[in-house]
């Protein structure tokens, strides 16, 4: 069945912010795809009016990679994700075809107000190591190089980069757009890319295939003038943003961690699917975190506890933030702690309490279509000297890498993914290292588990180095005890 798929003309489409506009666009040009909706869990799509075309849905940042490596002939994603790829790998086989006129926004560089800087060139004059948080780490590195920063550290984050300057990071690179205003206390310094949706092509497909029929359809539609993608900072725009009134409710939007008294404990709480469990647990401990369950609740700080402040970030980013000392403790998953320690074994972060909820298994998964039932079968399939390398897709890049190495898979490649990973099998990856709670999603995608790497539950993580402040140690100990007790009551 999937041999037929390979012969088709292939299009990679984005999930998330560009999805509804992209679906509208495809409908308007006559490439209506069934089930290309936010609620659909079907990632492989066909166009009834266009039988030779097939499409697959990816996280936006995966689209440019999939097109560049030649798995897809055409793709649609934000221009920033193309630049994220080409800034690090300039020879990537991507051709930028045209802007599509929607999803317009800017990738903005913002500085912590405490730095007292207002221009990009001021950053290099700061006599310190500059830290940058960004979902676009390659663009962040290029930016640091462009400013000729003498010493810099980049935190690649999974989201909410704009929050980071409030707990110690100097600069954040984040998106601003028509539907996303500057609502953090940052000084906007620069624009470094556009988030406008772009049609992109694989270079070989562009050179060797006749894509005319599809491109004709796109060319018939009148888009707004494509945005200028070269982002030399417009002084007037920066000024306008600087003057924009920051909406401050109840004083500061968020507590500034750098000015906190040393006895205050800084706790990171997770967003996403762990949030519900964590609220229940906190409730049991009598800790009310104001704003945590609000829709845009990224900045809660009312905890009802005198010596405790809280921020919400992605669980994936917590181990690095605790290691760097931006937080004292965090509630995350053991899967993310393990992945972090697989990458950085000397990182000063450890599990200090098991919260027992949110049990998932980290499993090795293949497509049922392959006929492979176990690890030996997989190894055998790829052991031939003429077989291509094993392609391993995973959000847990370091765990997947270590697993493949320990299982002696020989020549393998790990493809980092940012969600919707089950879509990769079997066309774009041979093995998936993924978490599963019940196994239902895997079964729905015709996937089978061939190995279990570990079990993971929510846990509290902290530094391996004890705080030098007695009061803080006491607060941490008391809080952890309360959470542990509450978890055992479940």
């Amino acid at each position, binding site marked *: 069945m999937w041999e037929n798929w390979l012969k088709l003309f292939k299009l990679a489409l984005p999930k998330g912010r560009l999805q509804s506009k992209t679906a509208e666009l495809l409908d308007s040009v006559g490439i209506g795809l069934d089930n290309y909706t936010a609620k659909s869990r079907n990632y492989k799509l066909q166009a009834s009016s266009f039988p030779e075309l097939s499409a697959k849905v990816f996280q936006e940042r995966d689209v440019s990679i999939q097109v560049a490596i030649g798995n897809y002939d055409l793709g649609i994603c934000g221009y920033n994700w193309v630049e994220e790829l080409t800034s690090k790998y*300039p*020879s990537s086989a991507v051709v930028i075809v045209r802007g599509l006129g929607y999803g317009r926004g800017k990738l903005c560089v913002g500085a912590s107000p405490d730095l007292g800087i207002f221009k990009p060139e001021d950053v290099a004059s700061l006599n310190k*190591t500059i*830290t940058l948080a960004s979902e676009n780490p390659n663009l962040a590195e*290029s930016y640091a*190089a*462009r400013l*000729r*920063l*003498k*010493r*810099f*550290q*980049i*935190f690649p984050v999974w989201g909410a980069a704009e929050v980071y300057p409030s707990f110690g990071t100097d600069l954040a690179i984040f998106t601003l757009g028509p539907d996303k205003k500057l609502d953090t206390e940052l000084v906007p310094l620069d624009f470094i890319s556009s988030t406008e949706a772009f049609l992109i092509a694989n270079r070989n497909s562009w050179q060797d295939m006749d894509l005319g029929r599809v491109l004709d359809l796109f060319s018939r539609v009148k888009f707004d003038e494509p945005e200028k993608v070269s982002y030399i900072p417009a002084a007037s725009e920066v000024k306008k943003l600087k003057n924009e009134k920051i909406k401050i409710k109840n004083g500061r939007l968020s507590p500034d961690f750098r000015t906190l008294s040393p006895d205050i404990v800084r706790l990171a709480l997770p967003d996403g699917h762990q949030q519900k469990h964590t609220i229940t647990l906190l409730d049991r401990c009598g800790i009310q975190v104001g704003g945590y369950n609000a829709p845009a609740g990224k900045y809660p700080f009312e905890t009802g506890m005198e010596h405790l402040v809280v921020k919400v970030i992605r669980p994936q980013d917590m181990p*690095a933030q605790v*290691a*760097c000392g931006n937080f004292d403790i965090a509630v995350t998953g053991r899967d993310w702690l393990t992945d*972090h320690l697989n*990458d*950085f*074994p*000397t*990182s*000063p*972060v450890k599990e200090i309490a098991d919260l027992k909820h949110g049990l998932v298994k980290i499993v090795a998964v293949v497509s049922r279509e392959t006929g492979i039932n176990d690890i030996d079968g997989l190894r055998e399939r790829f052991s*031939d*000297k*003429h*077989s*291509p*390398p094993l392609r391993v897709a995973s959000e847990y890049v370091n765990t997947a890498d270590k697993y493949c190495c320990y299982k002696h898979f*020989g*020549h393998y490649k790990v493809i980092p993914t940012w969600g919707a990973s089950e879509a990769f099998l079997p066309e774009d990856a041979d093995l998936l290292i993924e978490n599963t709670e019940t196994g239902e999603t895997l079964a729905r995608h015709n996937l089978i588990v061939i190995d279990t790497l570990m079990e993971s539950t929510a846990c509290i993580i902290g530094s391996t180095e004890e705080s030098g402040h007695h009061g803080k140690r006491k607060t941490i100990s008391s809080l952890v005890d309360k959470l542990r007790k509450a978890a055992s009551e479940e």
Partner: protein
Amino acid sequence: MDQDVHRCKGMKDMLPDDMALFRHIEQTFRNLCQKWGYREIRTPVVEYLHLFTASGTLTPSKLGQTYSFLDWDGWSGERVVLRPDSTIPTARLYVDNLDGMGKARLCYVHNVFTFEPSGLENREKWQCGAEFIGGTGPLADAEIVLMAVDILKTLGIKNIEIQISHAGLIKTLLGEIEKDPAKQAELFDNILDGKLEDLKIEKGSELDRVLNLLLGSSGKSEGFLKNLESITYPILPAIGPAMENFIQIAELLSPVKGHFQFNLASGRGFEYYTGMMLQFNSGGVRIGGGGRYDDLFPLINSQVVPACGFALYLDTLTGMVKPPSSKGDSSQAIAVYPREPTRELIGAGFELCRLLRDEGFTAYLEPTEEEAQKSHRSISVRSKNGTMVFSLREKSGRPEKIFVTTDNLVGELAKVV
């Protein structure tokens, strides 16, 4: 794509002949460095990225070609690099370990790594370098040049040409046109590329004439520099001290007169340097470079330490140098074999190999005559009437010679090898 094992793109294997040449160059370089008073060091392949970004020597495009990554300790976001350069790590080594000892004459044979996108050129390159840390003034500059020429001549490099420029002079000159040091390098490149539209220099003006003289001509003696000085100094008095320094260096280089050419335009990439800049060429091929870099140490958080140095490009030199053959050369190896596989003859064979090695030959034991005779020379070992007999045979077809004492055998080998 199949799973055949290949070397990484842009990397090079070194075969036995390549290594023989490599070691010959390396050994010649080390011997001469020692005679000039330079002591060998080795810095780690992996350094912190900030060592290079702090020194400001990595332009954004160079940074994009540096092998940088987060290692197992990279949880804080601190990146490390495979060293893209050897001078900065040497300066770091001095600050880390030798600071306060004053002058240090240091040399190294290092690999450096730069990503070259096509993969057609080597991404790992080898350098033989010498750094005179704490060496000040024209005397130290001249020492560096004379030593490099000594090494190149000893290696038998023909047609050695040394292009000498002066970064201090270039910077003073460009300072008359562009005050921002960050823009001076681009300006200099534009001048050399003939893109003069943006310079705002009136055509035919005195400044235009001086620029043409300084950047458009070259000479082979200090006299040329003195001529330039007398014409340009009245118009640009600021160049006085740098020009004076340049002339003093030229005067000290008279022992290698004929090899060098004073050419300010050869000073591309001058930002790193503060005084003399060198380019070594042979037959139009660049084989090394160097110069004075007095401003480097403060950029890596040290006090001011004057320094100069050079590096020769080992990979390029290997195409120009012929290794002398020696009796220890493995292509001249002697294969010893027992006529019969007895314990006694095998023991005697091992003993003969040891003796030959002690005498400086390359020798090893082969189990059979067939295997041994694949070598250039073979010696069979047999016993006749309780005496060991050695038969020397050469591939060249000379008649077999028989020896009953090892002294005679060694004497004969010394003649033919």
